[in-house]
């Protein structure tokens, strides 16, 4: 790699069958280094919780993984046929269109039939609000619709940024179930969150970011750390 170049590429053959692999990824905004030499991979079946204080670089790292932001340096390699489902701070929905029109658009693009679309509506409790425009529904409903959109077509890799921040308990339970089922089917998820209390139960791995760099990884080779001990260290550090 050149010193100031970055590559986001599908892998031709993948060692260890990781769905995404990052090597030495760096991202700067002006003079500040937001993501600092991050390397890690995510394999099928893994649910990675990405922890870190505000401004630690979680959202930028997720956007780099989803190929929505280009890294300044390093390699981001995704599986040859890996499709990414991303839900972040923006809903990626059109506020003037109804919830149904938005999700129908994605269903049509992804080749999902009407019964599949109906299942999505019922899974996320969107039947009653489907004809309302996105601008007219609550933030919680917008988040559910955004998650439904991200999960449409069963993408192999889920990249979720604070997915539970606007969700009530029932919707969070749906989210946990969906993530667990997704991982059981061989998919993977990378989730940035501050909501450990509600999402820790689905995690198979925890990665902690500080000032853009990975400072703890519960699956690091030679590290006997468990998810619980990494989370505990993170909590003490951020008190």
């Amino acid at each position, binding site marked *: 790699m050149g010193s100031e170049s970055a590559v986001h590429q599908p892998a031709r053959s993948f060692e260890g069958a990781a769905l995404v692999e990052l090597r030495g990824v760096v991202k700067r905004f002006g003079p500040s280094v937001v993501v600092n030499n991050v390397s890690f991979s995510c394999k099928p079946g893994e649910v990675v919780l990405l922890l870190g204080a505000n401004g630690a670089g979680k959202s930028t790292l997720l956007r780099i993984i989803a190929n929505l932001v280009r890294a300044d340096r390093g390699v981001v390699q995704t599986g040859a046929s890996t499709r990414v489902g991303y839900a972040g701070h923006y809903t990626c929905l059109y506020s003037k269109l109804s919830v149904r029109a938005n999700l129908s658009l994605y269903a049509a693009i992804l080749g999902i039939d009407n019964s599949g679309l109906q299942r999505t509506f019922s899974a996320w409790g969107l039947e009653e609000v489907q004809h309302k*425009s996105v601008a007219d529904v609550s933030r919680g409903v917008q988040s559910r619709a955004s998650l439904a959109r991200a999960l449409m077509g069963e993408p192999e890799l889920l990249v979720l940024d604070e997915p539970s921040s606007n969700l009530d308990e029932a919707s969070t339970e749906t989210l946990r179930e969906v993530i667990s089922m997704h991982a059981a089917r061989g998919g993977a998820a990378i989730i940035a969150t501050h909501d450990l209390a509600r999402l820790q139960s689905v995690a198979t791995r925890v990665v902690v970011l500080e000032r853009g760099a990975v400072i703890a990884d519960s699956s690091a080779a030679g590290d006997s750390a468990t998810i619980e001990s990494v989370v505990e260290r993170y909590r003490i550090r951020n008190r």
Partner: protein
Amino acid sequence: MAHWLSVLKLLIWKEAAIELRGRECLTLLFCTTVVVAALIGAGVSSAVIDATTTRKIFPMLVWVVFLLTTTTASARASEAELEGRGFEGLLLAGVSGTQIYLSKVLVTAVLFFTNWVLLLMVTSAALDQSVKAVIGELLLIGAGAALTLAALIVLISGVAGTSRLRGVLLPLLSLPLLFPLFLAGVELTTECILYGAITPGSVWPGVMLVSGAAFLLVGVNGYEVVVRG
């Protein structure tokens, strides 16, 4: 290719649905056109300009109003895309930036063309000019201009939309680039109004065609880069 075209059709439907739901661009275009044309009509009338001179300056006035109203309304061309970052969801679903761009250009061009038709009606009434004899040619010029203008405006609104200075950047970037279109438009409209047809061998249809093709080419290849920021 069939899937590519069916996705493009879906995106065109989406663009049209967003516009029809709010009618913001249509309302802004039509209101500005009627008001500015009425003001120009009143100004020309109070300046006591004779009928021959009015007929000579009519094409220039039509084009000034057309470019003014379309650039005013065009700040909204990429707004829906950037507001909720809808384009990111589409890109992740496998839609290309080219498809997003073309769908926007086509719907925006239809809006601009509708505005051109209204503009001809209102301005010819306000300045007491008949355009019936050359309406076919004028509609053809309007169609070419609407497509050229839309190709540029959608691209520029993407650039401006990702900047904090979007309100300033859009006219600053687009107006100089629209100069060839303005010249071609005024010349072609003048030929129609004064001589009853586009002069055979006129270079201006070529100027309009080349600038439209250039804007389309840059937009098709660059829109995704532009909106990603």
